[in-house]
């Protein structure tokens, strides 16, 4: 058997629903596990995004500087980058804030909101800075394949990953490339 394909998944500004849907592939994950090495993912404990990744699924929109820095690194170190789910493809609900002023958003969440979360300057020291607007991934880096859906259902994820591992361009039917 040839060496296993290096696969990664990344979680940017999203709810992790796409990752949940990925896990919903259920028993077919076992077949997949035989063929891939999961080198980086919120599901594993590696801290630094490795070099030489064959296929990466990136969930979530670009919301803050940390998202952007990681995405640039991911692009540089990966061969095939999949925009994974509606937040990555369109900005989705993450970009609902785009019509608001960023100061108003921060004030609403960190000053007016309930609870004992860091407030004001204290928050700005420990949290990544928000981008002025939320963007889809392809606003910042070239994307090789778009996999829309909120979340993409397990079947379209499996078909996409299977095709990419075989070195083919995924051919999804119309009903499998719908938004939302």
């Amino acid at each position: 058997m040839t060496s296993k394909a290096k696969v990664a998944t990344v979680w940017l500004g999203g709810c992790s629903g796409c990752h949940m849907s990925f896990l919903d592939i259920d028993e077919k994950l076992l077949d997949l596990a035989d063929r891939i090495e999961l080198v980086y993912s919120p599901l594993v404990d590696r801290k630094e995004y490795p070099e030489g990744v064959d296929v990466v699924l990136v969930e979530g929109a670009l919301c803050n500087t940390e998202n952007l820095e990681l995405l640039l690194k991911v692009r540089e170190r990966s061969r095939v980058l999949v925009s994974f789910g509606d937040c990555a493809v369109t900005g989705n609900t993450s970009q609902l804030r785009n019509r608001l002023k960023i100061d108003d958003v921060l004030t609403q969440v960190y000053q007016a909101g309930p609870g004992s979360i860091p407030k004001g300057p204290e928050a700005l020291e420990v949290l990544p800075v928000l981008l002025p607007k939320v963007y889809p991934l392809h606003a910042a880096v070239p994307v090789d394949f778009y996999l829309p859906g909120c979340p993409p259902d397990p079947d379209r994820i499996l078909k996409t990953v299977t095709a990419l591992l075989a070195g083919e361009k995924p051919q999804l039917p119309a009903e499998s490339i719908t938004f939302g």
Partner: protein
Amino acid sequence: MSVITVTINGVEGSAPAGATLLEACRQNGVELPTLCHLEGLTPVGACRLCLVQVEGARRLLPACVTEAQQGMVVQTHTEKLVKYRKMTLELLLSERNHICSVCVANGACELRTLCAQLGVDHTRFEYRCPDLPPIDTSHERNGLDHNRCISCTRCIRACDQIEGAHTLDMEGRGIENRVIIDMNQKWGTSRSCTKCGKCVNVCPTGTLFWKGSTVAEMEKEVGFLHWIRGGREKKTWSYL
């Protein structure tokens, strides 16, 4: 009824004299994507998805408002036309706030369906994310959400031409246009609205919806158009 012949994608076909190119195409088994068009309402050529190439014409023509002429030679799916149709859909996606995942019409939306059919899986254009008038839920039954509107005017035409109330209309021009109620007032205060719901049924997106429906719960039914028009024009009040 006299019949004309047209050549569509290299194949000769026939259509009744006076038919539009869109009707001629569909009668000859050539499907064209449309959003603003709805059989039973007068065509307006607003969405530009049915653009076709007619031999001898210097520009692309919207098939829904172009009368088919004897001997016309038409191309409907050239590389250029397919490219333009995809671009039109991408522009529609970027113009307002189409957030499919939280839309009442998810599953019943013609824009979303067409995007999938034509392979539009993202838009290359920057989202405008406009700040639009608030959602109007002052009406007893219907809601109006400008975020989802593609300015197809199907609601306006149904209200005017089928119901005869002309409650709905359009204000502004170009990218600033908005569907309005009566003299640009809250729907609930309208005296002309008969609450018939035709506008909601003909809306291709989630702009007009039944109040109380949540994500992906909307269903649209446009069969009444055929029935009413048939009755009025041919005096055949039949479901067949």
